[in-house]
């Protein structure tokens, strides 16, 4: 049986990779991909912890929910990126800095 620590290690790696992508990429699509990495890291954890759940299948259920929600989120995010591109003629997050004072 594969110990749980391996799952957690992988999901941590995934999360960190996603986080790194979110923080450093110069393309909004890639940032979105980084977010997907982080969501999937959480989903992997749900699935791995679901193995130890007394009510079987709880973890998998939550994973499915999360995937659905993530898909919806990506749709919204892509729409936002599309609008951003229309407005700024760029999807480089460093150029969309009108939030500053």
């Amino acid at each position, binding site marked *: 049986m594969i110990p749980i620590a391996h799952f957690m290690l992988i999901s941590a790696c995934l999360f960190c990779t996603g986080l790194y992508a979110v923080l450093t990429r110069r393309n909004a699509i890639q940032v979105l991909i980084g977010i997907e990495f982080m969501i999937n890291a959480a989903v992997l954890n749900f699935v791995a912890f679901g193995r130890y759940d007394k009510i079987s299948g709880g973890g998998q259920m939550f994973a499915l929910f999360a995937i659905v929600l993530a898909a919806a989120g990506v749709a919204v995010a892509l729409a936002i990126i599309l609008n951003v591109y229309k407005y700024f003629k760029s999807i480089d997050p460093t150029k*969309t*800095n009108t*939030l500053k*004072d």
Partner: protein
Amino acid sequence: MGGLNLTENIALIALAAALLPLFSFVFILLSKKGGGANFALASVSLSLVLSLYLFSQLWNTAPVHQQFSWFLIGTVQFYAGVLLNNLSVLMMVMVSGISVLVHIYSREYMKNDPNISRYWAYLGLFCFSMLGLTISDSLLLIYIFWELVGFSSYLLIGFWYSKHTASQAAKKAFIMNRIGDLGFLTGILIIYTQFQTLDLHSLFGDGGLIGTSSIDGDLWISGSQQMPVIWLSIAGFAFFLGAMAKSAQFPLHTWLPDAMEGPTSVSSLIHAATMVAAGVFLIARIYPVFDPLILDLMVWIGAFTAFMAASIALTQNDIKRILAYSTISQLGFMVMAIGIGAYSESIFHLTTHAFFKCLLFLAAGSVIHQLHHYCEKNGHDFDCQDIRLMGGLRKRMPFAFWGMCIASAALVGLPLTSGFLSKDSILIRAFEWGAAREGVFVVLPWVMVLTSWLTAFYIFRLIFKVFLGESREIKMDRLVQINDSPAQMTSVLVILSFFCTFIVFDSNPVSFESSWLWNGFQISMIKEISIFHWLIPLILNFGSIVLIFVAYRIYVRDKGSNKMEVSWLYHVSNREWYFNEIYNFMFIRSVEKLSLLTYRFDRTVIDGLVLSVAALTKIISSIADWFDRNIIDGLVNSAGSLSRYIGRFFRNFQSGRLQNYLTTMLLLMLSFFILSYLI
């Protein structure tokens, strides 16, 4: 009542005589036309007429004293007025008479001068000051006119002020006279302190305050006032100092030879009638104030001056300088005469000297004037006053020659001249005085005799060099171009020549006791010794004639051999006893050194102090500046920059970039976890 009116009238006439030249001075200065010769001559002639009238009215009568209240200081009333006695009327006639002659002479002599109207104006001022001096009745008034005489002589000596030597000479005369003026002022202050009045009549008149003041032990008492007796001597000395400067007595004599830089007619006026006479006049006017100590001082100063000046005149080569030293020498005679108590003899000599010295100068001026004309006409340039360059002028200028001869005879004191009477009278008195004294005083008359002989030598040396022999600078064939001066000048010489003879002063050519002038001042107090009265003139004249003959041999026959010029005596005499050098060394150099010293002191110590204070302030302020800039400003600036850095630091979080916000969030959360883990 009538008598009172007469007194008043006479005072008014005297006042008018004095004020006429002043009027001419003001008028000529104000008039735009220039010239003014006629006006000046008219006013001074009128002065002479008035003076002659006063003289005829007042000679040998009681003095006329008329005064009015002048001003009040506190409770002390000052008076100004006119005091006319024998002395002042004689001086008035002398001053105005000589002035008239000099005015006539100057019309020709100064004819071509571009500033001639200024000349006439100054002459007017000069005559006014001198006439005012003679009639003043108080020491204060005399002092005022005394200063005016000094000032107007300054103007006249420096008349050709564009000439450097002339302006220097004028300054020298003025400064030398200021030294004397200081003495005069001191004397006035002492007299005022003692007697509370400056009125001449009440001070020096018969039974005046000076006469009634007494000396008790060490105290000089007058009424309720008293002061140590030394002050009497100091007052006498102070007045004498004033007279010394004006009458060019040693050691204040050096201005007079330099004053020859003025026009010759002015020299003649200064020497004969006005300025130098003022000193002797002052001594005569306040004679009672001098105590025996000061009188002895006068004797020595006078005798020394007379001898020294005569010895200098022996070797001078400038015709006017010789005459200048001759004047100093004769003034020495007068001062010495007053010192020994020969008051009337001194005044007598002052009067006769005025005429013959005036004649000497005017004749010399005539020679200079004609030589100048010759130079201008022929384009020939030489020093027209240097007797070494003259010669052989006798035939060409007979008036000047004979005028000079008569005046010289009078100066030497040859018989039949006025000088014979006055000068011999002084010498006779000197011998009589010497006989009554002991010790060194016996030598004094012989010094005067020697001086008198020297006089004969130097004045005839001048005549022989100028008029006899052959011309040295001008070629013999050119000499015919030189003629006697125009009639206006020669007529003055003739008139003055007449005044140099005994006839004017005495009916008897050999005895001064019968002179009207001498008898006008009978206060001689020397015991008469009759043997001197014929012996002294004999010795004197014999010596003089021998010396004139010697001079003739040296300067005419031997053509002036230069054997003498190597001896040191010659140099001492030629360089005027080195007085100018000594004064230069003693006073001018030392003053210069002192001023250099004070200058250095000023530069190093005072300036150094100021500069070091300044430097110190500069250092302190630069420290303060540094402190201000770095500490105070540094605090303010660092507070500012601190907030700027803080602001900039926090600004970085508000970059507007989503990723940055996320990074920040991540870091904060991480640090929160780390912190919560650690705590």
